Structure formats: C-alpha cells, structure tokens
C-alpha cells in the first residue's frame, strides 16, 4: 500500500472531522476519495501530508509514518490543493525557477512541455492568474519532478469544462507512473479514469473498493409484483433504499451476482415477478449509499 491509515481520528474541538478511518491506497491506483462537503476528505489528506496531526490512529505514506515525513520525502510526493497559498507576487517563470532549485529530479523538458500544453503565460504574476490557470500551474508544479505519489485535493472544482478536460488529460499522462489520490465531491468528472473509489460521509468511510468491483455488484432493480406485497422482514442482505408503490418495488442491491440468483431471491420472497436490472453510475451508487446511511442514522 502506498497510503495506509488505521483507525485515523481527527477532532477539532468537539467536532469529529475524521472518525476511525481505515484507508488503503494500492500502488499504481488512481484513487478517488468522494464525499460531500464537510465529509472529512481535506482533513484526511492534510493528515496524510503531515499538515495536521491525527489525534488517534496512524497513517503511513510511502512506507513512512505521516508524522515523520521529512522535507526530503516530498521529493517523491506531489500535492495540489484548491486552497493552496502560493507566493502571489511571484511571476510564474520565477515560481518554476524556485521549484527547480528545490527538486534535483526536476524534469525541465517535461515542465516546458506541460507549460506549453497548458498555455501558461510565464510573465504573469500568480495573483493575476484565473482559477483554471492557477490549477494548471499547480499541476505542473506537482508533476515536474515525476513524483511517486500525487495527492490532489479538489483539483477540479470551479473549473470550466474545457479546462477540466485539460487538467484531466494532463493527469492521465502521468497515470501510468504515478499513484494518484484525488478527492472530489463531483463524481462524474473523475469516474472515467479512476481505478479505485472511497466514499466518505460525516468523517466516516462508507466503502472503499476498486471501481470494477463496485460497478459489478451494484444494480438498480425495478420489480413488478403480481400483487401488492409488503417488504420482507428482515430485509435481505445488500438491499438498499427499498420502496414499494402499489405493484412496483424499487430497490438497489449491492450484492448483485448475476440475474439468475437475484430472480430466485425475488421469487422466494414475492412469487412470480418481472425484474429489470440496471447498472448504476458511480454517482448513483454514492447517492444511494449516502441516503441509506442517513436513513439508518435517523431515529
């Protein structure tokens, strides 16, 4: 595991931002950390980067405990954050000049190529860059030295579609050599290239899994019943958000294993039925999970 946390907990006063988090990011993955605003994604990332220290539990990055991350470890870690504070008065070219001094492994050719690709104006001051250009510049600043791990905290929020595509393309060019940990509250924009996903809500991890697996086992199920029936009690395992409306039953299964077994199960409970299964988008899965969680925690 490139990044691993065990029981990570971080509190701000009485507010538990992150609670008992067990995150595992395998090497080479493009790992998406998804969750609504306030879920604890940024806090988790900051703890990983040793910007904050956890109250309980531990985290390790590239084999080093996060608390012990030394300046030199950051030669292999790239970090881009939406709220990153840069030397605003510096011109872009001077900023990259500064970065070049810090990283012996800096690839000047790569930097030039990316800067051309992103069309970054060298003589403009950082404070005068648009949001999109700023994120692109940050990305170059994180990619130039070919880090082993790239951590991106909400890099795509606030970008228009064109710029978003540029950034994503830029990222993808590196995906082969780098492990990427990217957080977002917007699924659609990243699901096309992520390999793993983790959902967070209210500081807790709802699930973390490879996308294929996820897509394989979640299905939206529409059932037409022969008669008005009631929901079986207890609810079968893996059924989420079941709703009965007259002769129709809607639910989501997280244990989909093929049409046959599902039909059998439905028949067992309801007799003859007509069943339709739809694969779900990541967003739909996320929403379902979050809604289910809300329902569970409601009194």
């Amino acid at each position: 595991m490139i990044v691993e946390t065990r029981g990570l907990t971080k509190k701000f006063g009485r507010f538990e931002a992150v609670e008992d988090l067990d995150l595992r990011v395998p090497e080479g993955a493009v790992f998406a950390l998804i969750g609504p605003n306030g879920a604890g994604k940024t806090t988790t990332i900051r703890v990983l980067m040793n910007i904050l220290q956890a109250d309980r539990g531990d985290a390790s990055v590239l084999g080093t405990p996060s608390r012990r991350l030394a300046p030199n470890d950051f030669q292999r870690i790239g970090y881009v954050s939406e709220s990153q504070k840069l030397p605003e008065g510096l011109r872009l070219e001077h900023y990259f000049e500064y970065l070049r001094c810090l990283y012996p492994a800096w690839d000047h050719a790569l930097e030039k190529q990316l800067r051309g690709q992103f069309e970054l104006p060298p003589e403009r001051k950082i404070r005068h860059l648009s949001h999109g250009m700023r994120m692109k510049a940050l990305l170059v600043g994180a990619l130039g030295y070919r880090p082993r791990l790239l951590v991106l905290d909400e890099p795509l929020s606030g970008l228009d579609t064109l710029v978003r595509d540029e950034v994503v393309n830029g990222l993808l060019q590196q995906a082969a050599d780098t492990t990427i940990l990217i957080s977002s509250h917007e699924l659609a924009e990243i699901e096309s290239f992520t390999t793993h996903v983790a959902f967070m809500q209210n500081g807790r991890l709802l699930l973390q899994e490879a996308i294929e697996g996820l897509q394989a086992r979640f299905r939206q199920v529409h059932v037409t019943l022969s008669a008005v029936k009631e929901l079986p009690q207890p609810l079968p395992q893996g059924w989420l958000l079941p709703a009965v409306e007259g002769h129709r039953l809607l639910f989501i299964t997280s244990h989909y294993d093929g049409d046959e077994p599902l039909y059998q199960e439905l028949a067992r409970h309801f007799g003859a039925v007509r069943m339709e299964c739809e694969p779900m988008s990541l967003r739909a899965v996320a929403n379902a999970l979050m809604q289910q969680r809300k329902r569970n925690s409601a009194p």
Partner: protein
Amino acid sequence: MNLRIVGAILKKDIRSLYPLVLLATILFAGDVILMRLDVTTVWPAFRTPVLILAGIVLVLAVFQLDSAASLVDDWLCRPVPRAELIVAKLVLLFVVLRLSQIVATLIIQPLLGASVAETVQRALLGLDPDAVALLPLLMFTALVTRTLVQGFGVLLALFICAFAIPTPFVTAPGPLQPGIGTALIPAGLDWLSYVPSTLAAFMLFGIACWLVYWRRRTRVGRALLVVAMLVMVVLMLLPMWLLPWKPVYAAQTALTPPHFATTLDTGAIYLRSLRTCFTATYVRNLADDSGFAEARRAVGVAAWTREDQAESGPDSVAFLTSIEPRRLPPDWRVGLIYVEAGYFAASSLTPLYSLRPTSYHTEDGSLSHAWVLPEHALRRLGSEAKVELKLRYYLTLLEPHQFRLRTDGRRQAVPGLGYCRAKLDSTGSHIEVNCFSGLDHPAQVSVELEDIPASRVYGLPNYAPGWARWPFGQKLRLSIGSPRLSRSDHITVTAWSLAGYLDKSLVLPGVLGSDSGTCPLPSSEGQRFQQAVWRDTAKHQTSSIGVDQGVQLEILDFGGQGSPILLLAGLGATAHSFDELAPLLTPKNRVVAITRRGTGYSSKPDFGYDTPRLAQDVLQVMDALELEKPLLVGHSIAGEELTWLGGHHPERFRGLVYLDAAYDRSQLATMKSRQNALYARLSPEPPIPPEATRNYEAMSKLFADRGHVRLPEGEIIAMWNGDKPFLAGMPRMDARTAQAIMAAAEAPNYAAIKLPALAIYAIPDPRKALPPWYDTSDAGLMAALTELGRINAVAQRKNIELFRRSVARGEVLEMPNATHWLIQSNQQQVLEAIETFSLTLKDQ
C-alpha cells in the same frame, strides 16, 4: 547547508515582497543618513514609531510568506529544508534591517569626516539595544501567526500584558517597599535587566523555531510565546522589583570584576557627613516648610513620590543626609550603587530599624539622600537610651581619563572613549557634545567647560561588562549649559573607567546626625531655630546698579566726605567684607563697595566673568555714581580687575591698593594637581554645629575657637547663608562662577600700570597654631602641610618680586603675622597703610 536553496528562497522572498523590501531598506538606510546629517527636525520626531512599524510589518511579512502556522502554504508539502528556510528568512531580515544601515554608515561617515576606524566601528557596532531586545519576540510572533492582522493583534496583546499590567508595580523605590525599582537605571546596573532577558528571548525563539518548523507543533509554539513573554517580563523586572539590592550588587561585582592597580589603598578612603545635623522636618509640614525645600534643592535631591509620604504617616520625619568620601585618589570619584541605613542600639548587631532612601543624587562627589523615618520607628528609637545611625554605602570607584576637545564641531578620537565632537548650538546657549563608543566601554562619560569642573554634566553610568556591551556601541549626547562662562575654545571630556568597588560605612550618633541635645527632632511648629537674630547692622546704604543686560550689582555706600575710595571684594566674597573696615575710612573719604556679579545679592548671570568685562562692570558703577578718580582698593581676586583697570584706564583712578591681591593666577593650572592633592590630604573642617547659627555672637565664638578670622555679620549672611539654619556654611556662590573667574585669570601686565600702586602682602605667621581638628600625630597630614607651606611661600615670594620689578610706581608692603583676610585680622594696619598711601597720592 545548501546555499543554492537558501539563495532560491531568498530570491523568491525578495521577488514576492520587493516593494516592502525596497521601502524598508530605504527607510532604515535613510534613517541613518538623516540622523547623521541632522538636516531636519521632522524625521527625529517621527522616526521611532515609523521604524518600529516598518520593522514589525517586515518581520511579519517575511516569516508569514512561508508561515508555519498555516494549513495551506505551498512550502508545507515541498522538500524545503527547514534550516535553509530559517536561514533565508534571517538573512533577508538582516540585509534589510541591518546591512542597509551598515552600508549607509560606511557611506555617510567618511563624508562627514570620520576616520576609517570610527566608520567601521559605527557601522558594525551601532546596534540599538532596545531593537535587539524586542526582535526575538517579534520573530516569535511572526512564527506563530498566519496573517499580518493576526500578528498585529498578538503584538498588541503582548504589549498590553507586558507594560500595562506590571507597570503599576514598578516604581521608584519607597522606604517601605521591597525591591529596587527604577533606581537600577541611574545606578548603571540596568544591564542586569536587559541582558538575561534578551538572551532568554533568543533562546526561546530558537526552541520555538524547532517546535514549529520541525515538529509542526504550532499550538505548543503559541503557548511558548506566552511563556517567553512572561519570562522576559520576569527577567527584566527581577532585578528591579523582586530582588533586593544585595544579590544585584553581588551579581554586579561577580560579573564585572574591577581592574585597578593593587597599589591603590582603598583602606584610607573614609566617609564624612557634611552637616552636623541632618536637615529634617515632619512629613505633614513638607508642603509648608520652605527652608527644608530650599535645603533639598540645594543638595539636589530629586522630588519625592506622594506614596512615600502617604505610607509613612504625617508624624514621620523626613530628613536629608549629605556624605562625602575623603582621601580618594586625586580627581577620582565614586558612583553610588546603593546605600542602606540602619538604627542600632549602642553596640548591638541587629538594627532596630532599617531604612532605604526615597531618592538618590550622586552626581557631584557628595552622596546626598532623602529618607523617611516612620512614626512607629521614631517611637521605638525614642524608647532606647542610645541609638546610632549606620550608613553603609556600596560604591563604584571611578578613574578619570581626560581629554581636551575642540568645540569646532569636528570629530576627534578620544582615547578610552571613542569619537566625540562638540559644537556650540545655534542659539549659543549650550555646547552640544556627541560621542560614539565602539570598542571602548567607559563606565561613564562626563563633559565640562575647560577649567570649570563645576559645570560638569554626566551621562548615565553603565557598569555592564565588556562582553555584554560589545555589539551595541554607545551613542551619547550631552549638553553643557552656560557656555559663556568659559573663554576657551576647548571643553574637557572625561571617560570614567570602573576601577573597583568600595563598601564603606559611617556611624553617627543619635537619630538626626548627633545626640538629641545637639540635633533634636523638628519642633512642632516646624522651625528649630529663630531666624530673626541675624541682622546686618553695618552703616551702609544698599543700592543696586545695572551694569549689563539683566545684570545688577549690589552697591554698599558707606557715605563719608572726601576723595572717593572704591572697594572690591575677593572671590565669592561680597561688599559686606568691608563692613568693619569701611566705616573707619569714612571720616576722610567717600567709601563705596561693590559686590561683583555672581555672588551675594548681585545678579548671577552665566556670562561675563572674564576680567575685561568685570572691569567694565566697575567702570559702569563709577559712571552711575559719578565717582571721580577714586582710589581703587581690591582684596584677593580683585587684583585681576585692578591690574586690568590700572593698565587700560589709568586716567580714571587715583591709585591702586592690592590687599593680598597682586598675584599671577594664570599659572595655577600647572601647579593645580599637586596642590589639589595636598589640600585633599588635609583634614576637613568639621561642619558648623547648629548652635553656632543662632546668632552672630555664637558664630563669632565658633570662628574664634576654630582659629578663623572673624567676618562681619553682613558678610556671613551674604556669602555663607549664615541666617539659614539648613544652609549655613554653604556658599551663596555658584561654584561654576568662581571657577570661571579663576579660569579667566591672565598673567598680570604690571608693566602697563603707570599709576601709583600699593601691594600689601599678608605674610603668614609661621608659629600660628594649627586648626584644632588637625591630628598632629598624622605624619602624612604634617608632611602635606609642610609642603603646602613651602609651595605657597615660594609662590608668594616670586609674586612679590614680580610686582616690585614690574610696576613702575609700585610699592610693596609685607605685613607679617597676617592672614589672607587681612581686612579683618590686621584691620588697623590695613587702615593705616591705605590712609598713608592716600596722602602720598594727594601730593602728586
């Protein structure tokens, strides 16, 4: 240390902040230039808050560029080595705050005429100790805050905690309060406050850097800032407020050991009280007792605090002590560190009551203090049969190194001090002296008009050891008033070095300086002595004549018929010197006596004491009174006016009579130090006991007992404050004026005197009894007396011969068995000599 990275960070910081960096550099460099060139008065008024503000903004901005307290700064996730980061920040601050000043100094000083050595010293050693003390706290604040606003807020909070809270507790020391208070500063020991506090601040800042940058513990860092603030305040206040004098003194003597030649005999040095009884009054009378207030001003005791007075109770006794050290090496002096007083029952070891003074005054050689004895202590002492007061002084011994400095505004190198320049200021009312000490560390610096030691002005003492002072250098600005007292174009600058420490005690009987019979407690009316008993009953009419701008001279007209005689008194004496002699002359002459400016009831301006001006004063009086060709008779120093007038205005006078006055006083400077040393070796006359000040009879009896010549009552009142019980014995003349007159003395041009002139010389009686207070078994004293007698006799002989040779129509009369005050001691002989001489003039 990767210098490339330091350079990259520096470049980034400068590029990010270049407007601020540029402005601050110009500000700090420009400050140096403007202050040196001294072209405007606007900048010095504003510079401190402007520089402080610029410094704060710069330090905060530089550190907050890569803030350790932030969660979003770029450097947090970059391989920025912490050591290089801090070094880059410190280098930037150094370049803007200090290097700019060094370069500016290196440029401007040579343009102002400074030598290479001085320029380099000023550049490298001119640090401001206040800035150095506050810098670590400022950097500390920058470390733990994220934004400029936060930084200012924290600084404001620290300022309030540091100053607003402890300040009410740090006051001048009262008699009943523990601790030292701000008295530490005039005692030259404030380095014991500053140095530990500054060192601690730097250390804690270093720890904070490590905590915040390496360990990422910002909250602990913030807590440490509060701790650092408390530590600094405590260390600064500790010597002042929490510790009594003894440990502070011990620290001083341990950390700054003395350097003096072991041949110095400090055992011979002793203390004596200048007054028989301490000037005293009840605290409730302090506001109304003008005599006490006058006495307090005369010894220069600074104002008291109301708290001292309130705390002790209205029936407490406030009193003044004046002590002087004797047998110091010539020209040396002492500086006070502290003094403690205790009342003891006879030969007991534990004090009945201990006192601390309410105010200090240590400038001129005499150690004067004001004390308050509370009511309850007074009662306790009253119940004891015999009490004594033990005064114990902890002193520094200071050795002078003098230098003559031209007052032309050009800087000169002063050995043992550094570099000084002196100039008369634009209004002509002061001589401004500016000094810079780089590598030298004088304990104190003083400046004075040449040959007028009483005009001396002192800088604050600083007894810090060299290692605590070296980075700071010291800038000094002193101002000598009344520059027209001296005609010289030089002043004397003295660098005093700390030669050692003295711990001396003085034991006096009774509560107020002597037994309760001699020195009783203040009477309930607040007055001890009747004042009405002193009268000037001589037969003269007093008037006052203006002779110069704002200068009036006292004239005593004794009346009489006949040719006029004009009498001039000696140095510090007044026309009343002649109160007894003058009436004896009036049967045959009109007699008028003049009190010279600067003494008695004449005006005391701070200019015009050179002989030509004093002579002009005499002519003015003659014009005003329409005196035609008087016989000019002068006593002692009046010889200067006589010689000058005789040489320049012979047509205005009938003749001259020198009453032990025809001496060449211009050579005194060369003989001065030997004679001074000998005079210092003589035992001092005991102070005047209070009974003697009751009336003239009592005083005359005292004079007789002591072998002094009796003076006229009017003279005792006019010159010696005889009618003021608290001030009796203190001359009514400013010492500076006397010294100015002596300094202006020139070699007498006897050859120019074409008038008839009679010089009477008082030849002392070799068998005259010694003053009763001399210890004839003291071999050193006897030897000094013998040598002094020899020196004076030789000098007198030379002057007699000089007069004889040089004055064309001169006559010498040697009067044996006479004293310098021959107008009293040999009155009849003097009278006859004058009358005889006057008759011979008639024949011409």
